[in-house]
C-alpha cells in the first residue's frame, strides 16, 4: 500500500505553493492520486508556510502527520516541523542554516519561540536548527543537508544566468531532493516542472537544472534508495485542482452569467479563476446551434460585500443566473440583503468559504464556525436553503445543484464550503466532473404573471424585470408586488413563504440532504458536516482495522434539515460523537433543535488547522475509553 506524505516548508513568497503543486503533478504523472494542502499565513512575504502532500493509489481522503519527508527550505521550517517526521523519514534542509537560532528568526511566532526555548531548555540545549535535527535523528529521522549556496552557484554557472535571477530555485532543489528520497525519479520532477511553468517558459530551464543538481547531490550521498513503483493511473490524464477552482468551474458549467465579489480569503481565488475564464469557448454543439464562438460571464469586483450581494440580487431579478462568493466577515455584511433576497424571492447563490473566526480571526486558516450564523442570517423570519459540501467533488456538484434550486424555488441558497477545500488540491478523473446525466437548465416557473401570486406550493410565477410592468419590494406586498400593510394580505404572504419551505423540503430528496456511511450495526455513530467528511471516512477505515465499527451521518442540508434520517440513525446508536471545527458544536446543536436528540460527545478542532484522520481515530478511542464529553484535538503547526 503506497501512502506517502511530504511536507514542504518555507517562507511565504518562496515558491512553497509551486513546489507543492509540482510534487502533486510529479506523482500524478507517475500514476498516483494525490491530495495537497497549503497552510499559509495572512502575509504576503516572509512568514512561514507549508504544503502537505499525500499520495496513494486511490484518492487520499485526509491529511495526516507525521510525514515521510520534510523539505525545510529555511531554518524556521526545521524548527517548526522537526517533530512531524516519522522514524525512518528524512529532513531535507539547507546546510547553511544549521547554526540558526530560533530567537533570531524574526517572523517566527513568539509563542512557538517560547515553547522551543522550553523544550530545548529541558534538554539543556538551545533551539537551533542543528539541535532540532539532533532530536529528529534520535527518533530515527535522517537529516539531509543541501549546500544551497553552493548548488545555486552551480546552477547559475550551468544556466549562464546571474545568481540573483535563479536564487528562487531553492524551492525546487529542496523539493527534487525530497522527491528523490521518496523514490520519485528525476524525470517525473522535470516533467512536472515543465507542466507547472508552461506559461513562463523562461524559468523552466533554471528550475530543471536546479532539480537535477539537487538530485545529483543527494544521490551521491544516498545511493540505492528504493524507487517508488508506478501507480495504477500511469498514462491516464488527471486534473489537479483546488476546491476554489472546482466551484468556479461548476459555476461556469452550471450556466452562471453574473458573479460579483469583493476580495476576501479564502474566497477570492474562486472569483479570480472564474474571471480568468469569463470569456470562454463554446463546445462544438453549442457553437453550431447558437452560431457563437464564445460566451461571457460578467465577473465584477465590487466596492464591498453589500454591493456584491445587492448587485447579484439585481442581476438575478433581471433574469441572470447570479452568484456571489465571500467568507465570514463579508457574509456578515450581507445579512440585510439576504433578508431582502428571501422577501423578494431572488434566486441567488451565495458561496460561503468559511475560515477561522470570530471576526477577522485567522483569515487564512480553517474553520467551520459559520453554520448557525448562515442558517439564521438576515433579520426577520428568513428561511433559505443551506447546503454544506463534504469534499471537492461535492462542492462542484452542489454548486450546480444550488444554482438550480435557487431558481426552482426562487430563494437564496447558501453554499457552505471552507478554507481547507478552498486551497487543497485533489486529482480528478474526467468522468467525475462531466456534466452528462445532470441536465443544466433554467428552472424558472413561468406560468402566470402575478409575480407574488399566492399559490398552493408557495412558488409564484417567475417574472423577470424588463418583461412586464411590475413592482418588486422588500416591504410586505400583495400578489402584484405593491407594498401593503393590510393584515390579511400580510398573513397570506407569510403563509405562502412557509408553504414554499415545505415544498422545498418535499422536493429536495432526503438522499441529497444527508448521507450515511458505514456499518448498519455499528456501536459508534459519528455526526458531522462539511470538509471533515473525508478525514472521518479515512478514520473509519483505521478504526475498523482496530475493531471499532463506526457509522457516519453526514448532514448536507441544514435547511431543509433531514430530520427523519438523522433521528432514526442517532436514536438507535449506542455512542454518538459529533465532529466539528467550532466551539459550540453547531451541527450538534441543530441536531438537537430539529430532532430532540442530544449528541453527547464531541471531537472538536479549534486551532485553525484542518482535522487529520488520526485525530479522529484518537478522539473516538479516547471517548470510548474515558467517556469524556469533549475531546479537543490540536494537531498541526
Amino acid at each position, binding site marked *: 500500500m503506497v501512502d506517502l506524505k511530504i511536507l514542504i516548508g518555507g517562507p511565504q513568497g518562496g515558491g512553497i505553493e509551486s513546489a507543492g503543486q509540482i510534487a502533486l503533478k510529479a506523482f500524478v*504523472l507517475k500514476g498516483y492520486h494525490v491530495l495537497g494542502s497549503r497552510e499559509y499565513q495572512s502575509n504576503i512575504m516572509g512568514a512561514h508556510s507549508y504544503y502537505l502532500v499525500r499520495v496513494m493509489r486511490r484518492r487520499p481522503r485526509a491529511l495526516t502527520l507525521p510525514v515521510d519527508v520534510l523539505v525545510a527550505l529555511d531554518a524556521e521550517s526545521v524548527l517548526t516541523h522537526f517533530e512531524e517526521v516519522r522514524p525512518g523519514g528524512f529532513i531535507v534542509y539547507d546546510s547553511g542554516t544549521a547554526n540558526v537560532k530560533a530567537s533570531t528568526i524574526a517572523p517566527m511566532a513568539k509563542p512557538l519561540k517560547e515553547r522551543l526555548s522550553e523544550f530545548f531548555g529541558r534538554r539543556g540545549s538551545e533551539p537551533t536548527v542543528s539541535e532540532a535535527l539532533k532530536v529528529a535523528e534520535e527518533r530515527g529521522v535522517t537529516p539531509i543537508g543541501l549546500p544551497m549556496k553552493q548548488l545555486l552557484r552551480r546552477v547559475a554557472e550551468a544556466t549562464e544566468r546571474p545568481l540573483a535571477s535563479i536564487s528562487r530555485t531553492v524551492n525546487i532543489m529542496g523539493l527534487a531532493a525530497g522527491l528523490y528520497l521518496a523514490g520519485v525519479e528525476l524525470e517525473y520532477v522535470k516533467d512536472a516542472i515543465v*507542466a507547472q511553468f*508552461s506559461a513562463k517558459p523562461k524559468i523552466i*530551464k533554471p528550475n*530543471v537544472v536546479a532539480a537535477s543538481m539537487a538530485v545529483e547531490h543527494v544521490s551521491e550521498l544516498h545511493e540505492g534508495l528504493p524507487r517508488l513503483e508506478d501507480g495504477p493511473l500511469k498514462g491516464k*490524464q*488527471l*486534473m489537479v*485542482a483546488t476546491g476554489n477552482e472546482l466551484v468556479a*468551474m461548476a459555476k*461556469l*458549467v452550471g*450556466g452562471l*452569467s*453574473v458573479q460579483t465579489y469583493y476580495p476576501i480569503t479564502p474566497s477570492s481565488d474562486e472569483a479570480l479563476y472564474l474571471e480568468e*475564464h*469569463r*470569456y470562454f*469557448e*463554446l*463546445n462544438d*454543439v*453549442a457553437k453550431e*446551434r*447558437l452560431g457563437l464562438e*464564445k*460566451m*461571457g460571464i*460578467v465577473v465584477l469586483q*465590487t466596492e464591498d460585500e*453589500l*454591493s456584491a450581494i*445587492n*448587485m447579484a*440580487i*439585481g*442581476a*438575478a*431579478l*433581471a*433574469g*441572470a443566473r*447570479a452568484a456571489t462568493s465571500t467568507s465570514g466577515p463579508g457574509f456578515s455584511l450581507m445579512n440585510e440583503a439576504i433578508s431582502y433576497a428571501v422577501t423578494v424571492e431572488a434566486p441567488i447563490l451565495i458561496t460561503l468559504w468559511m475560515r477561522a473566526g470570530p471576526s477577522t480571526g485567522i483569515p487564512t486558516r480553517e474553520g467551520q464556525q459559520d453554520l448557525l450564523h448562515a442558517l439564521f442570517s438576515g433579520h426577520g423570519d428568513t428561511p433559505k436553503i443551506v447546503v454544506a459540501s463534504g469534499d471537492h467533488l461535492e462542492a462542484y456538484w452542489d454548486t450546480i445543484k444550488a444554482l438550480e434550486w435557487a431558481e426552482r424555488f426562487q430563494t437564496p441558497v447558501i453554499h457552505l464550503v471552507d478554507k481547507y477545500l478552498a486551497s487543497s488540491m485533489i486529482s480528478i478523473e474526467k468522468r467525475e*466532473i*462531466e*456534466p452528462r446525466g445532470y*441536465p*443544466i*437548465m*433554467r428552472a424558472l416557473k413561468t406560468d402566470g404573471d402575478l409575480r407574488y401570486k399566492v399559490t398552493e406550493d408557495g412558488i409564484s410565477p417567475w417574472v423577470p*424585470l*424588463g*418583461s*412586464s*410592468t411590475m*413592482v*418588486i*419590494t*422588500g416591504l410586505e406586498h400583495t400578489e402584484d408586488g*405593491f407594498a401593503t400593510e393590510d393584515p390579511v394580505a400580510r398573513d397570506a404572504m407569510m403563509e405562502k413563504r412557509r408553504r414554499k419551505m415545505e415544498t422545498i423540503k418535499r422536493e429536495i430528496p432526503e438522499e441529497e440532504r444527508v448521507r450515511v456511511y458505514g456499518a448498519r450495526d455499528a456501536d459508534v455513530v459519528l455526526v458531522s458536516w462539511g470538509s471533515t467528511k473525508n478525514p472521518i471516512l479515512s478514520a473509519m477505515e483505521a478504526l475498523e482495522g482496530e475493531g471499532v465499527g463506526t457509522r457516519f451521518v453526514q448532514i448536507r442540508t441544514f435547511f431543509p434539515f433531514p430530520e427523519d434520517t438523522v433521528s432514526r440513525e442517532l436514536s438507535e446508536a449506542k455512542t454518538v460523537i459529533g465532529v466539528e471545527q467550532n466551539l459550540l458544536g453547531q451541527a450538534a446543536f441543530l441536531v438537537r433543535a430539529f430532532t430532540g436528540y442530544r449528541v453527547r460527545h464531541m471531537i472538536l478542532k479549534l486551532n485553525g488547522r484542518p482535522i487529520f484522520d488520526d485525530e479522529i481515530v484518537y478522539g473516538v478511542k479516547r471517548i470510548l475509553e474515558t467517556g469524556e464529553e469533549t475531546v479537543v484535538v490540536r494537531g498541526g503547526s
Partner: protein
Amino acid sequence: MARSFLEYKTDAWVQWCPGCGDFGILNAIHRALAELDIDPRNLVVVGGIGCSGRTTFYVKGSNLHALHGRAIPLATGVKLANPRLKVVIAGGDGDLLGIGAGHFVAVGRRNVDITVIVFDNAVYGLTKGQAAPTLPSGVKTKALPGPNIQDAVNPLLLALASGYTFIARGYAYHTAQLKEMIKAAISHRGTALVDVLQPCPTYNNVMTNQWYEERVYYLEEEEWDPVVKTPEEYRRKVPLIAAKMLEWGDRIPLGVFLKDETKEPFEERLERQMPGYMDNPPSSRPISVDGYPLADPWKVFEEKVVKKVEASY
C-alpha cells in the same frame, strides 16, 4: 408618436404630504419619460427607502424598491444583467449620500449608464425629520433637539470627485426645467446625477419654497457650456465647474454643470472585454444546449489537466 405622461402613472395612492416637493419631481419624471417615449417595460425605476423612494410605486415601469442605501448596487446588477433597460434611481439624500455614500462614489468609477435622482430635502423624511447629510450645520429644523452639528456634504462635488459624467441640479417645483434635466440625464450614456432641491414642508421648515425661490438661478443665465469632449477640455473646464458647484448661500445655481463625453459607459467596457455581451446579455443568454452546458469542462479548464508536455529548454 410620443406617449402621454398619464401612461406613466400607476393607480397606487401617492402618499406624500400635501405640498411635498416630491410631487414636482414625480411630475417631471412622468413627463420626461413620456417625451422620451420610453416603453414602461424597458424602464426600471429603482427606489431607495424613504418618502422619495416610494416613487417606485408611482411610475409605471418594471420597478424595484431597494434596501435603504442600496439602490445603486441593486440597479447596477439589473443593468449588468440586461444592459438594454433604462435604469433610473429615485432616492433620498439620506439614502444615497448617507448610508449609500460608498456606492454613490463607486458607481461613478464605473460610469454605468444609469440616472441617479437625489430627492434632496436635507432631512430624513420618512423617519420623521432627522438631519440628512445635506443639511448645513448650525441649522435647526423642526424635529431636531438642537442645531445640526454636522456639516453638509456637497453632492455635486462628490459626484465630480467620483467620476460622474453628467451632473445637474434642479429644483422640485420648477417642473419644466427639471423635466429637461431628467431627459438629458436619461439620454446621457453614463452615470448621471440629478440632485433635486426638494422642500419638505413637514420637516424642513428652514429650506422652504420661499427660501429656495429667493436663491436659485439657472446656469444658462450666465452662458454656461457643460459639455466636455476631450481630456484637455476637462482639465480646463473642471476648476470652473468645481467653483460653481461650491456656490451656495445667497445664490444657488441650477442646471447641468457637467456633461463629460470623454468616458466610455460601463456596458461598452464589458462589450470590449467580452464581445457579444450586448447581444447575449446575462438576462437572456442561453445556459445550455439540450441540457448540456455550453462548454466542456475538461477543455475549458485544460490547463488543470496534468500532462507530459514536450519542451525544449
